[in-house]
């Protein structure tokens, strides 16, 4: 099979999953298609780097993740995109997790940094394991587990604060660019 045929096959096999990935991050159908198109233009240029087998979709998630982050980086720190991903409504004081409305959890997700939110959505939305998240993000499985642990904890802390459950939310973290931007391969 020539390059174009293999490329088209890769596209067909993964279009649905990438569309789902985009929709999970608040993109409408047209925006998700734009994301997929941008992703596959990169894939064409780097087609020789696409891993065989199951690794391909993780590699594609990684490219899509970079495209998405680039899109977000061009907007304000808490973007209108994020606002659209996670619309929120007023919340009432509640102390049990099961009682917390999904809207409140959406709001807490929105309050997370982009990277924290991505780790959680890769696991909860795309159903990836920590090791697979590591492949997508280009870090090791141990690092991914650590990131997931921290992200879960921050999400829980935000919810706790919002619902006035015991501990106050620790104020932020050092505002470095990792919260907002991707490394430029140096």
């Amino acid at each position, binding site marked *: 099979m020539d390059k174009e045929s293999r490329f088209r096959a890769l596209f067909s096999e993964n279009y649905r999953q990438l569309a789902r990935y985009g929709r999970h991050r608040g993109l409408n159908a047209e925006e998700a298609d734009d994301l997929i198109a941008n992703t596959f233009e990169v894939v064409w240029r780097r087609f020789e780097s696409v891993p065989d087998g199951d690794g391909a979709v993780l590699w594609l998630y990684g490219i899509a993740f970079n*495209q998405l982050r680039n899109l977000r980086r061009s907007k304000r720190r808490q973007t209108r995109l994020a606002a659209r991903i996670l619309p929120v409504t007023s919340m009432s004081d509640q102390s049990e997790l099961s009682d917390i409305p999904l809207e409140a959890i959406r709001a807490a997700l929105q309050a997370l940094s982009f990277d924290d939110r991505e780790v959680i959505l890769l696991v909860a939305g795309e159903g990836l394991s920590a090791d697979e998240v590591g492949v997508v993000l*280009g870090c090791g499985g141990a690092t991914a587990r650590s990131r997931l642990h921290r992200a879960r904890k921050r999400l829980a802390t935000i919810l706790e604060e919002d619902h006035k459950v015991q501990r106050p939310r620790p104020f932020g973290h050092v505002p470095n660019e990792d919260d907002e931007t991707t490394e430029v391969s140096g």
Partner: protein
Amino acid sequence: MSDQLQDELLKRVRDIVNLVDMDTANDSSEVESLRALGVIARVMANVQREEASRRTMKRPNWQTVRRPRGRVVATVSVAIALVLLAGVLVSIMGDNGRLNSPITTSWQSGKALNAKQAGATVLSRHGTWMLADNSLSGTWQQVPVGPPGTGVTCPTASACYEMEKITAAPVENSPLLSVSFYASTDGGVIWTQFTMPNGFSPTTLLSCGSGSDCDAGGTYNGQSVLVSTTNAGHSFNVAPLPSAVGTLFSLSCTSGQICGGLTSEKGPISAKYHPDSLEFSQATDATFLLTNDGSTFTSTAFASGNSLWTLECTSSTDCVALGDQASQSAGTTDWAEGIVETSHDGGSTWTSATLPSGFTVSPRSVLSCADDLHCSVSGQISVPFDNPPACATMNHPSNAPTSIPVTSGVPSAAVAAIVQFESSLITSANLQAKPNTEGFGCSWPPVDPVSDIMSTSDGGTTWTPEQLPSSVEAPVLNGLSCPSDNDCWASGYDETVQRVPGGSDSIESVLLGTTDGGATWSTVTFNVPPGTPSSESAFGDGIGRISCPTTNVCAANGVGMADAASLPFYRLAIPNSAS
């Protein structure tokens, strides 16, 4: 919240995602197939257009790569060189493969950087971009075929250099395949690519003290080294650092092949313009290292617990180092005083001072000194602001500026004035922002880290924060270069929407300049021609490093994603009569 509850929380997040899936489940497979067909058709059209333009592009004369005259002679020469190299390696490397003394790579001719490697897509699709309408004299021009790096340095008006890692994939922490060295002898228009020693991984930016001398810190097969060239990249010397100083993370070379550096045993920090290995708020425990291109090394330890990040040497004797107070920089609104160390005896003794509180020197700060008295540094201030009114309906407990806690200290009066100015700019913009419109967003807590510049004219004893133009709402600076006491250029990006046909907000490059020592800064605006695509990832990140060897010559890198097809490169050439 316990781990069990956190697991439950993940399930609730999954419920949210499932709701999204249910919303889209109504799309029929037929509709989905049609959408997929549309996307692949678009992708194929774009990639085929790119490839066609590459094939039809006429190769300029300067891109002609000379073929070797005598292939057989060359082959024999290489074989002999390899044999000699093997012998040399045996004599200079210990049993464990570590370098005991410097090695020098064989001479290489370099490879012209052609349009296929960088810039072809931009050139063919969008034409040459001119950066016009600048408020300062001179014209910025985008060079369509630039090197793919992010850390240009030009020691003279004509000589410019870059260093760039080549990785296996366009993702973070991808395995390093090789490191390229790019050289230009015409101010950044035409570039030649060289290969740096195999096994070398940079941990500093490139620093070039004169027209053909450049150095970089890094590791060589895991061992801390200084790599230098004295012939503009045709060969490299790899010198092992002394034991117990760690790895270089900041390097500043002056003429005469003298370099000062900061090392840490906690490193390495990456060589990108955005250091990322040593964490901000962590003490670097830096040591000063002075070397003459790796022939000899002299080290001087700073006080234990120091958190110095950046160093600049203007001569073999005059150096200044800046950092933050690691123990106190733990929060968004950290207003602890930064620290300054100055030396006028080649690093043997250092004098300590402090920066005005509220101005944070971080790993990504850039220090530039025109001479031993005049230096400027980019840093970060924390700016509280009001969210757009619509954010109030989100009922977050931390969405009021008064709720921002202060980690330590208070800002100095001078910094507080800058913070107030920036705060009013952001708040003013937010008041106009409406949901689902360009620029709308809510931040919790409502505070942004914003770049600022601080300068000294007395060798580092006193520093003054400078107000940046109001047209740049929330600047993030990547580069700073001050070729004289009065002239400085700063580069970076802003979230301000740029003027692009079609309404794209993806271009947010920022160039700032001052000709009065920082008293006033002006913005260079971008005039983007018709036909520019509405979204071009290569331009999404603004401008990286900037290097101005003289008051009328500058070069700067465009910054893009790791998987961008090409990166822009900018150069400024002001006619001498206008300077």
